[in-house]
């Protein structure tokens, strides 16, 4: 029990330590660093799985683990909390991290310096953001993961990366300023930054200060929504994600989910049904903002000509669906949305990895298809320049005809497309079906009370189906262009290491199809505990600091 609470800090400390080792190893020893990195990432994934099991097994109501890193009583010191939702996100991060790393180990980690150190710092920021229960610490972890992502975004360099990286960095710096303004306003009104404490203080805020509180929360939400990719705050996302190198883009697939996670966490805690006059503040903004995101992204996906771009736009579609679903504040809908989140994140990561393999043969052999006139020659820098071979063994990247590669790419492409569109038989379908089902039965199947389905729910239902149709059209066109063209071209030479992560991610999605019930149960339980924030508040505020050895000795002396 004691050891488990200490384990809560491990996902943050482990990458920090590993990154420090990487930096000390310097620029050389790349294979060694890659191995350490892989070991550490696998260990991090193992710890996350342990934490997930722990939230399942403990008899504590709500299964919430609390760790006080400074051993200060809760509202005063910083605190790390793991509950079902954070444990789920931790495991997802771990899986995607390991897959992206395996893919990077084949070629990409040689494209620039310090890849492995930055990668670990990125993991640390992600794990930290999912674990922290303190608004300012959340800011710090956001900055950690953003700082690492700036470096990773530019990994491989090249014109397209640098110019979209410039936009990415300036937008995120602005969003960080907004984050600080929002956090400061909330602190000014409530006098606390601890999330659990905030949940208690917000119903007590006097009427005169409520406007200020709402302004602070709204400014804070703008920062998160920019991260989560809500229209119209998402114009930076597509160029940045689609020009990032493949393993980095696969990691970025979870970055928008950080924004969605923080929104879900803060909104359900701070503006829950118990928040008095502030209950469900801004819910409509989430619903309609999410819908606007779905519409814009679905239209744009029809026009996309490059697979990376389609993958980035699919991220936006799924972000829109999730935001909209969260806005309804309906436990069974949030549970279904969490299942959809897991399934779509796995599929999108796999698609980013796959996109690079599919486009590799094209970009090396023929003139690239221009995506748009505005960005002249978008392909030139997405691949390493010709003549420079990143491989250790200097093997030819393209040219060997290996029959299984095209089959592998084609089948994986179909699987990714099915998952993202949400067609049967894969888990994307189950996710979307869960969402549709929850929209049509606001109270769940058991309560057959006749509550009419709201107009907003009908609109989201229509958009879910229409965005699936748009993706279907775009993906089938892309598949025909890439795989069914009669033109003879050498199939790309794939490394085993590059196929393993894609295969693993898709296999996980297929496993999710067969084992959907346990995960759905889990996400429903997570949504249920989000709907009852008092459990979280009680667990966090009820945690006592560990007494000092002197105090413990004094207690022992008194007892007999």
């Amino acid at each position, binding site marked *: 029990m004691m050891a488990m609470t200490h384990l809560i800090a491990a996902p943050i400390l482990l990458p920090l330590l590993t990154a420090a080792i990487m930096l000390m190893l310097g620029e050389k020893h790349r294979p060694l660093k890659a191995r350490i990195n892989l070991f550490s990432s696998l260990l991090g994934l193992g710890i996350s799985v342990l934490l997930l099991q722990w939230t399942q097994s403990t008899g504590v109501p709500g299964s919430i683990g609390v760790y006080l890193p400074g051993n200060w009583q809760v509202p005063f010191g910083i605190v790390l909390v793991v509950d079902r939702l954070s444990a789920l996100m931790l495991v997802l991060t771990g899986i995607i991290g390991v897959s992206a790393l395996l893919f990077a180990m084949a070629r990409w980690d040689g494209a620039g310096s310090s890849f492995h150190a930055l990668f670990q710092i990125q993991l640390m920021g992600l794990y930290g953001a999912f674990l922290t229960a303190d608004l*300012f610490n959340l*800011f*710090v972890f956001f*900055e950690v993961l953003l*700082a690492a992502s*700036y*470096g990773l975004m*530019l990994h491989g*360099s*090249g*014109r397209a990366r*640098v*110019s979209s*990286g*410039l*936009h990415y*960095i*300036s937008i995120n*710096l*602005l969003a*960080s*300023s907004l984050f*600080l*303004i929002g*956090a*400061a*306003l909330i*602190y*000014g009104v409530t006098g606390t*930054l601890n999330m659990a404490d905030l949940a208690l203080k917000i119903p007590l805020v006097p009427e005169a200060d409520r406007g200020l509180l709402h302004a602070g929360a709204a400014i804070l939400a703008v920062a998160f929504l920019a991260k989560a990719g809500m229209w119209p705050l998402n114009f930076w996302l597509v160029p940045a994600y689609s020009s990032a190198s493949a393993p980095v883009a696969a990691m970025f697939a979870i970055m928008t989910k950080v924004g969605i996670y923080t929104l879900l966490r803060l909104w359900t805690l701070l503006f829950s049904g118990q928040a008095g006059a502030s209950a469900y503040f801004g819910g409509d903004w989430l619903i309609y903002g999410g819908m606007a995101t779905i519409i814009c992204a679905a239209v744009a996906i029809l026009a996309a000509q490059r697979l990376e771009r389609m993958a980035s736009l699919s991220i936006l579609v799924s972000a829109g669906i999730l935001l909209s679903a969260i806005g309804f504040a309906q436990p069974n809908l949030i549970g279904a949305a969490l299942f959809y989140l897991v399934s779509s994140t796995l599929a999108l990561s796999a698609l980013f990895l796959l996109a690079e393999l599919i486009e590799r043969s094209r970009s090396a052999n023929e003139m690239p298809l221009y995506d748009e006139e505005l960005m002249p020659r978008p392909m030139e820098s997405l691949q390493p320049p010709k003549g420079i071979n990143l491989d250790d063994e200097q093997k030819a990247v393209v040219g060997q005809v290996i029959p299984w590669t095209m089959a592998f790419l084609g089948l994986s492409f179909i699987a990714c497309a099915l998952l993202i569109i949400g067609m049967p038989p894969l888990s994307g379908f189950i996710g979307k079906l869960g969402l549709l089902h929850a929209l049509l039965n606001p109270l769940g199947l058991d309560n057959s009370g006749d509550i009419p389905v709201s107009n907003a729910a009908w609109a989201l239902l229509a958009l879910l189906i229409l965005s699936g149709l748009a993706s279907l059209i775009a993906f089938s066109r892309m598949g025909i262009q890439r795989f069914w063209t009669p033109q003879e071209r050498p199939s790309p030479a794939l490394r085993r290491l590059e196929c393993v992560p894609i295969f693993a991610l898709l296999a996980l999605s297929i496993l999710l199809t067969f084992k959907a019930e346990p995960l759905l149960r889990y996400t429903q339980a997570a949504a249920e505990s989000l709907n009852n924030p008092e459990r979280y508040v009680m667990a966090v505020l009820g945690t006592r600091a560990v007494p000092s050895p002197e105090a413990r000795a004094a207690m022992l002396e008194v007892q007999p």
Partner: protein
Amino acid sequence: MEEVIAIAIGVLAASGVWLVLRPRTFQVVMGLCLLSYGVNLFIFSMGSLFIGKEPIIKDSVPQDLLHYTDPLPQALVLTAIVISFAMTALFLVVLLASRGLTGTDHVDGREPKE
């Protein structure tokens, strides 16, 4: 004092926003700097403004809330300053890389067509 601080924050934020919207990368960097100064002052002012009060407990000062100011925003500002400073340095590096690769200091990496 509140008025002076409020005007200072307002001027910093306004000029920051104006500069961020300019087309040259250096102006954007300056804008982001000014904005972060404004934000730092804002966080500081959120702990309510006092002159000559201690943030941490001192032996010669009576220990009640009247004689102390809120130390937390000051700690937060310190963190925010460090982070924004580091981010500005990083942004400058990217700015230089972009200037080197594209040959222009326009934020889009190319001069607008006449």
